[in-house]
């Protein structure tokens, strides 16, 4: 099948500082791709290059089967939503939505129909005559989305559209965007550095670091089987716990992980290749620890509670073990207090192991 968007051998450099190097991705029609990565890793740069807002150093950008590397942004069949909304401040919502169409000299009736449709879809009907300054953050963001939608194109680009909103609004709009995608079925490329957004929205997530894609896979895959230490640490809140140690195997016996006095049998861990001896990092998520480790028959990590963070439906317990602070997620009510001893058990089948070079074993 033809890709909706594809980037071939893309390289972008400012002077001799290469921001994106030899990148190639294919994005399928109707796919929701999230670009996730730390600040400065080149997410916006990539998105801008796709939109035609950024000069590329070499490589090609294809949209809907057409090489658009040299096209003007308006001719690429894309709509874009920006982090700062970038609404035209002195125009009413209606004008914001219709400005591009009026400049393109669409028939009046067509413009009105499109604006009405978009406004209805995004529940902006009642706001059409307000100015951006008279809108709340969430409303502004909806208008920004509307301005992209009204163009009725196949590909939408979102550059951290929610990061200026407060937590509550962010959660609400996230769901709305997801519904929108299900309804419209357009291709969407969505940049964020918020991993909750990435996990909840994406069909596939591309995790970037320094202009290079680390892992491109489904959210579940990325969460469960991170390809390397960077991805593992980047995804998950609270972050994955890491313990440094070594993998050793007796003669022919199952490999074990030794770290800081801890010995963990790795026979239930599914290695990607045959496990070699050597330094390794064991990573496991807070929910992979079971509070009553003793009864579970799992290897235990004894420690002392440092901080308890109740979050309503669940709670995160931070405990100290061997100079490290590890986290453990509990459902429901927690009776632990700072200072209490605990020895949670670790489910090694769900954990991840990384070799000396940081990649998954």
């Amino acid at each position, binding site marked *: 099948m033809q890709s909706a968007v594809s980037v071939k051998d893309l390289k972008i450099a400012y002077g001799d500082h290469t921001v994106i190097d030899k990148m190639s991705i294919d994005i399928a029609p109707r796919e929701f791709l999230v670009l996730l990565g730390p600040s400065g890793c080149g997410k916006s740069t990539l998105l801008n290059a796709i939109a035609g807002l950024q*000069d*590329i*150093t*070499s*490589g*090609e950008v294809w949209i809907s089967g057409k*090489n*658009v*590397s*040299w096209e003007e942004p308006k001719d690429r069949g894309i709509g874009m939503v920006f982090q700062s909304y970038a609404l035209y401040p002195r125009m009413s919502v209606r004008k914001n939505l219709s400005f591009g169409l009026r400049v393109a000299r669409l028939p009046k009736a067509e413009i009105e129909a499109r604006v009405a449709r978009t406004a209805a879809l995004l529940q902006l009907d009642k706001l059409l005559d307000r100015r951006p300054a008279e809108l709340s953050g969430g409303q502004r963001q909806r208008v920004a989305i509307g301005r992209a939608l009204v163009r009725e194109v196949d590909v939408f680009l979102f550059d951290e559209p929610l990061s200026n909103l407060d937590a509550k609004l962010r959660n609400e709009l996230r769901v709305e965007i997801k519904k929108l995608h299900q309804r419209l079925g357009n291709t969407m490329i969505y940049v964020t550095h918020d991993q909750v957004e990435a996990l909840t929205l994406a069909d596939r997530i591309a995790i970037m670091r320094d202009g290079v894609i680390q892992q491109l896979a489904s959210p579940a895959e990325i969460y469960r089987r991170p390809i390397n230490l960077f991805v593992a640490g980047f995804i998950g809140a609270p972050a994955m716990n890491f313990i440094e140690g070594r993998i050793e195997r007796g003669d022919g016996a199952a490999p074990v992980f030794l770290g800081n006095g801890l010995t963990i049998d790795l026979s239930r861990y599914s290695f990607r290749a045959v496990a070699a001896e050597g330094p390794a990092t064991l990573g496991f998520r807070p929910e992979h620890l079971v509070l009553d480790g003793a009864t579970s028959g799992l290897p235990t990590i004894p420690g002392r509670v440092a901080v308890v963070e109740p979050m309503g439906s669940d709670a995160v317990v931070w405990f100290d073990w061997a100079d490290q602070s590890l986290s453990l997620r509990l459902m429901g009510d927690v009776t632990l207090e700072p200072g209490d001893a605990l020895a949670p058990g670790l489910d090694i089948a769900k954990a991840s192991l990384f070799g000396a070079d940081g990649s998954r074993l």
Partner: protein
Amino acid sequence: MMARPHPNGPKPAQITAGRIGLYAFLVIAALFFLLPLYTMVVTSLKSMDEIRLGQIFALPATLDFSAWATAWSGACMGTVCVGIRSGFWNSVAITLPSVALSVFIGAVNGYALSLWRPRGANLLFGLLMAGGLIPYQIFLYPMVRAMANINLYNSLAGIILVHVIFGLPLVTLLFRNYFVSVPEELCKAARVDGAGFWRIFFEIMLPIAVPMVVVVSMLQFTGIWNDFLLGLVFAGRDNLPMTVQLNNIVNTTMGERTYNVNMAATILTAIVPLTIYFLSGRWFVRGIAAGAVKG
């Protein structure tokens, strides 16, 4: 255009008509702005005979710097023929303290009005703005009396005080607009830290207002340096600024007009503020960008 190659990498650059028009506009505008300066310089380098021929834009046939020498040190004002040289230092002596003082007071005003909002702040600001709009010819007469009463008439201190007073509205306006955009929390944080009005001003606000100080200083400097009327009326015989002498050279009603000397004298008088703009225009622009002037 040739058959389109396979697009890859950056779009090839093209020279468009719009771009050419843009540069044409800029160049024409630049000519419009430069023409008067060019004329002044060229005229100052001509001899009077050549000027009478009436080709003001023509380059001088021979470079004649004598007008500059005359303007600087030889031109007569009445029976004294010392050029505008003597006024130069008077102008410096008037301008520097006036600028320093008015900028300081303006900064304090702007800071107090916007971040402390004492009682009546709005009224005071309104009065100042009204004062700023009123032509100061109106103030001359009573001010002269008042200055005489406090024994500052015809003194350096007097003219400085007058400049400071008449500079207050503009300077206060600019600083107030600037400080309004400074987060109030900065002031609050300092108050929690125990700093008082002055301490906050000197240690926190003044340092962040440096770009503004530059802008206001430049505006005040040109304003005060270029002033003629106040200097004439208040400075006194021994402190007359350069502009009064320029007027004496340029504005003679009876007698020959030596345009070359006039132009040289004019340029000489304007040269200090011009130099400041040419050298520190960058800072001026930066200061404006930092929020010197906004609504």
